[in-house]
């Protein structure tokens, strides 16, 4: 909305402005804002035990 129009609305009587606030509240009650749907974070990729690459485990002794 243009700033001039907003200033015009600001100069309305308090009673008129409160009546409009009431309308806005009623609208918000009847048509609640939908929360945006966000994709759920994907589950961490966990390899099953059978697919875990085989490790020999402990580092071997360093050969000279």
């Amino acid at each position, binding site marked *: 909305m243009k700033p001039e129009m907003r200033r015009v609305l600001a100069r309305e009587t308090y009673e008129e402005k*409160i009546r409009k606030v009431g309308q*806005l509240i009623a609208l918000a009650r009847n048509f609640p804002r939908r929360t945006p749907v966000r994709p759920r974070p994907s589950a961490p990729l966990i390899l099953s035990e059978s697919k875990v690459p085989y490790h020999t485990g402990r580092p071997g002794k360093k050969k000279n």
Partner: protein
Amino acid sequence: MNEPLSPLPLADVLRAANGLVEARLIEDYALGGALAAIHYVEPFATYDADIFFIPSDKGLTAGMPAFYARLKSQGWQVDGEHLMLKGFPVQFLAAQGLTEEAVHEARRIKFEGIPTKVFRAEHIVAIAASVRRKKDLARIEQLLQQAELDQTLLEKILQRHKLKLPKL
């Protein structure tokens, strides 16, 4: 029995607040928050009404149990930190410091013929500058653009309470 829901029963809220003053359960009150700001700017949706009051009882509870009991007897319901009237939440806040000054210096108006008080725009700006949530910054910007502020009074209030306007 539950009263019918009303989007904004401000006249009933003000009548009840005046009743609390007449019964000397509070010394004085004024409308603050968004509903006070709307006195000076374009209308916008708000979630509740904030009534700042000067307690008669200077004790820790600020006399709240007594006036809660009175309002409950008049059909108000308690819901967390709010008192509900016809489904509309109202918060009674004990005024102190800057908000106490704002109650004392509030503008006397009539709403639908009911005498009441509303915070001055300059106090609303100063309170928003002290709280500084996102919505307070938006309120300051809106008041600076749309309200006819007394800049000298605003400067005095800001200085007295060691406040600065945020950069917008």
